[in-house]
């Protein structure tokens, strides 16, 4: 840029830039005071920051769990479960005196338990008579 053009620009720019402001300084200060009085409510900056940090921490824990621990293990198929697992998972509403045995995953076996009065009537040999107070073998 030649010197003459430089000077022309500099002078014009200075004239333009040094013009007084449209609003006088005292009026601008009063306007600012009015805005400050309206804006005097304390801003919940601290609470917002706390909420943002807490949210970030929770998201970080969840992300870590998913990335490093993995999703919760899915339950095995019904046919892959052991009989013991089936017995625990599916407690049948059985009446009194009835027992449930799983032959396999698809075959339950219900047994009816004979009450004690019936066993006495069956006359089991070599069975000592029970007396009051003694525990039943």
């Amino acid at each position, binding site marked *: 840029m030649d010197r003459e053009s430089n000077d022309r620009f500099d002078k014009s720019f200075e004239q333009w830039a040094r013009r007084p402001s449209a609003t006088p300084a005292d009026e601008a*200060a009063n306007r600012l005071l009015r805005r400050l009085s309206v804006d005097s409510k304390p801003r919940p900056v601290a609470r917002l920051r706390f909420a943002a940090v807490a949210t970030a921490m929770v998201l970080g824990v969840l992300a870590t769990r998913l990335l490093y621990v993995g999703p919760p293990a899915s339950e095995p198929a019904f046919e892959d479960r052991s009989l013991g697992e089936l017995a625990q998972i599916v407690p049948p509403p059985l009446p009194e005196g009835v027992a449930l045995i799983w032959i396999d995953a698809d075959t339950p076996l219900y047994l009816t338990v004979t009450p004690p009065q019936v066993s006495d009537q069956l006359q089991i040999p070599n069975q000592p008579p029970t007396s009051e107070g003694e525990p039943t073998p």
Partner: protein
Amino acid sequence: MNGDQGAFADLVERHWSALVGLARSIVGDSAAEDAVQDALILAWRKLGSLRQATAFSTWLKRIVLNQCLRSQRRWLGFLSISDIQEPVFETDPDAELDLARCLESLAPRQRAVMYLTLIEGQSDGEIAALMQISAASVRSHRRRARQRLSHVLSGANHGS
């Protein structure tokens, strides 16, 4: 709080013209005073971050500068200097200078550097501290500004 606000307003009144001049060079006439008012509200909220009372002028100017540069980014860098109505070539009426076109050809940071250099007479180091850039960046902004202005003015001269 009212007394503090009053003291703050007194300080603002003292610096108002300089702040508006700086803002005007970046965002143009129509938006300069609103930009400064918004920046002053922000400065009031950040008053606790001011470490040295003697640095108030620079601190305030930096807030205004950053506010104006941020607003320019939102407006996609368009500068509404087209509201310059009166001619500014009073010293040489035969050499018309399209100042608006010249300033619109500059980037906001370039305009800020030119203002701080030509109008406030600040050194490269002072401008660098205010704009939080290196002195080399200040010189680069100014050099590119001069190159753009040369291009605009040479095009105007050829056209006349």
